[in-house]
């Protein structure tokens, strides 16, 4: 019970802060330009075209895509993309092929970063998780099907 009321309390103060922000400040500038076109695209190919100018990716065995074969809860599907075996990784994108907005996240790496991302994503139904790795100007792809037994997007 203590934890529950604590959570409620923090949520309430959070909402209040948002109200203050909205009232007093105009929406402030974001850290980097958020690619709206790619994040509103309805298909994986459109999203990739909007982001990279091409949806032409070659399948690569060097990308280690780790996702569960069966996700008990689609709202929290752990996905790990390890491209540290590839030289000169510029970016990693994770897509869920049948989500309303397929592009989930995109990471751009400077030279001081390693091509590795692990996160949790929402999946509405059984579909493929696609990892796109850009290295040396080329798009590489790895794909894996995840069976979802409880939906993540429909609530």
């Amino acid at each position, binding site marked *: 019970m203590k934890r529950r009321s604590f959570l409620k309390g923090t949520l309430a103060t959070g909402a209040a802060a948002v109200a203050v*922000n909205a009232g007093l400040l105009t929406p402030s500038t974001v*850290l*980097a330009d958020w690619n709206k076109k790619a994040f509103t695209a309805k298909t994986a190919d459109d999203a990739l075209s909007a982001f990279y100018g091409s949806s032409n990716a070659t399948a690569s065995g060097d990308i280690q895509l780790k996702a569960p074969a069966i996700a008990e809860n689609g709202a*929290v599907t752990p996905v790990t993309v390890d491209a540290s075996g590839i030289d000169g990784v510029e970016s990693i994108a994770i897509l869920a092929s049948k989500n309303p907005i397929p592009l989930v*996240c995109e990471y751009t790496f400077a030279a001081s970063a390693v091509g590795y991302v692990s*996160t949790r994503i*929402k999946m509405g139904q059984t579909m493929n998780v696609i990892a796109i790795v850009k290295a040396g100007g080329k798009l590489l792809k790895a794909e894996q099907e995840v069976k979802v037994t409880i939906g993540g*997007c429909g609530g």
Partner: protein
Amino acid sequence: MSIKIRMRGKSTGGVAEIKALIKHPMESGVRMDKKTGKPFPAKFINTVEVTVNGVKAIDAQWSGAVSANPYVAVKVKANSGDEIAISLSDNTGEKGTHSLKLK
């Protein structure tokens, strides 16, 4: 109030794995409210930046399909004593930042 971030990092052999847990609803704007028939308003983190000693190492863009209370792990080339910082903002302009010195 800013977005809450919990973060851990450890460097082994020049490569540090940074793990972060962020407290955020990540409402995608697609989910329907069954009572009103309208979608819940979107509120999700859309930009994330990781710096090593103040220099940008990773720049990420997210959609609302990253799970609520996001967990993220990334790797950067850094040694113990280096300062790692994560800063992020959501589509309503709310921001959060957290930094640590690597062990």
